[in-house]
């Protein structure tokens, strides 16, 4: 395998553009249910590479709007049931495309608020699956729309704190084992609520730093395999904690770059595997956080370009990070 030290920007742009042209592949149809999230992942990657114009803005907006349902939420594709996951992706896409004015914020807000129960916990949809991811997403969506006051913050805070473990990490809910993806969602949630002071910064930073394996890659919890997507979940968490320097960033970048597909573009979960847009997004996001040159900065809470977040007036969370952490 050749030594890859450069980010193959043109290849990745072509890869992302080609995603919508794979109708002859079964995989294209089998992943239809998360198409909206696929677009979000692609758009973030393009933005970070400063190539966001590679996709047709009007076509994207038109498609996203068609994915909105009568209940105000968005499905992963047209006529698919609403879920917080896809509502989040839709709102993030419209923010990045500067098209939030095309939706009725109150309608989306009503959908999100309807998913919080009287105990403060948030479900992903009307069927009731609860997860700290949904706690974060509900706060994030409403913060973007400027309607975050309509949620019960105390309830969400309690749910997140109840999901904290002895290792400083967070699980999917009370009792859940610490997992890097849940650590990110809980930290991001606490950041938006202005409650980062509740975190055990030392323990959690240690736990996150231990995610780096000898090959430079990061895993999601002890004794698991490295995966490029953890370059985001772990690094964004460390960024919020202001401890990114607790891992070896150059080695991480080397690992991510080795996972690129030199021929077709895109990034895989680890070197040698097949590329997909999800790992392309989080690999590039990880590179940005690790300081790899030539990329836009990314906001570690919203997982969107910093310039987009700042322009939208959403960077307030930064001012509420505990002063001792700076």
């Amino acid at each position: 395998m050749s030594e890859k030290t450069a980010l193959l920007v043109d290849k990745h742009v072509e890869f992302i553009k080609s995603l919508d042209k794979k109708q002859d592949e079964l995989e294209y149809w089998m992943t239809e249910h998360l198409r909206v999230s696929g677009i979000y992942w692609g758009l973030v990657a393009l933005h970070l590479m400063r190539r966001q114009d590679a996709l047709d803005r009007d076509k994207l907006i038109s498609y996203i709007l068609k994915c909105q349902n009568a209940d105000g939420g968005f499905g992963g594709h047209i006529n698919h049931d609403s879920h917080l996951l896809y509502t989040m992706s839709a709102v993030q896409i419209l923010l990045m495309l500067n098209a939030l004015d095309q939706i009725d914020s109150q309608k989306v807000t009503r959908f999100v608020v309807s998913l919080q129960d009287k105990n403060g916990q948030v479900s992903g949809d009307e069927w009731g699956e609860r997860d700290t991811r949904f706690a974060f997403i509900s706060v994030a969506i409403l913060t973007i729309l400027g309607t975050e006051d309509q949620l019960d913050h105390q309830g969400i805070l309690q749910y997140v704190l109840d999901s904290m473990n002895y290792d400083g990490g967070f699980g999917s809910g009370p009792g859940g084992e610490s997992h890097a993806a849940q650590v990110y969602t809980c930290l991001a949630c606490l950041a938006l609520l202005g409650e980062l002071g509740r975190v055990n910064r030392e323990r959690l930073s240690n736990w996150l730093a231990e995610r780096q394996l000898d090959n430079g890659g990061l895993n999601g919890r002890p004794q698991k395999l490295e995966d490029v997507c953890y370059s985001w979940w772990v690094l964004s968490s460390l960024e919020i904690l202001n401890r990114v320097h607790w891992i070896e960033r150059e080695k991480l970048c080397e690992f991510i770059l080795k996972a690129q597909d030199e021929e077709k573009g895109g990034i895989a979960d680890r070197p040698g595997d097949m590329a997909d847009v999800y790992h392309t997004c989080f690999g590039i996001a990880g590179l940005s956080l690790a300081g790899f040159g030539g990329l836009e900065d990314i906001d570690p809470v919203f997982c969107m370009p910093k310039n987009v977040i700042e322009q939208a007036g959403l960077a307030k969370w930064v001012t509420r990070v505990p002063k001792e952490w700076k």
Partner: protein
Amino acid sequence: MDDAEKAQTRQQVERYCALNQQVMELKAASVFSTESLSATKRLLEQNTELHTVWNYRRTIFMHLDAWQNADERQQMLEQELNFMLEIIQKNIKSYWMWGHRVWTLSSLPRPEWKRELGLVAKLLALDARNYHGWNYRRFIVSQLKAVAADTHAVDESEFAFTTEQINRDCANHAAWHNRSKLLPSILAHKSESDQQQVLQTENDLIMNAIYTDPEDQNAWLYYDWLLDIQKSDDDRCRLLRNKITAIQELLELDEDSKRPLIELVSAYAELQRLAPDTISDIEKADCLDTLCKLKNIDPFRAGRYSDMSRTLGQQWALSV
């Protein structure tokens, strides 16, 4: 791809898309029948990730006449549990499928929680770290406790399950984690002297794991937990001193053993927080030396060791 492969793929795509379209049309027309139920089954067998179709399937169940009759509902949903067992091999990490299983159990007139517990134990025997498996196990245990005459017995039984898992493989992080969640309620129902016994047993379990494999993080992390649940800082300092002694013994066997060295500096940092006056000058020097050593033998985390050197060095007013 050669022509034969292309033709085969085209056929697969056409078949899948036709089935998908059929189901989505039935859904749009709100058709709740055994035929539409059957169509959703065929589609979900192909793709377990279609949460919209799982939603539709549940809605169909609730509209069928059989739903209104307890025995018929029982039979229908038991078949559903079997259906899910068949397809779980395809994707053991499917959030949607686990969610559907929870719904099915919750909708059964007579759910057999103990049988589910047995099933998930089998799954965890095959894949001890399965995140969904452990979450599901906690769900079942909470249901068992809701109907149990003696909820503490359920906790004790789960605690014993984690002991079994740890004895089988002390590197099982999920087992240690679940143990940490159960320990407080186990302790809460014991007398003062029995509590001491439990904590001593935990201490022994951890020490055994540490001596078996000093490089494994799990037992060390759990030791932090044991520190947390002590009642006083004096007890914590005593445990930290025990930890330091154990580490020093391990280092006599192998002075460059990485994890014990990391745990050593963590222990001193914690002692510095709780009882700074109890650390001797020799220990302070040893700690700072160890941090330098760690920057070499664990270079990826050099940033952390530098930060610790600076903080402790400032607090101890020694040159770094």
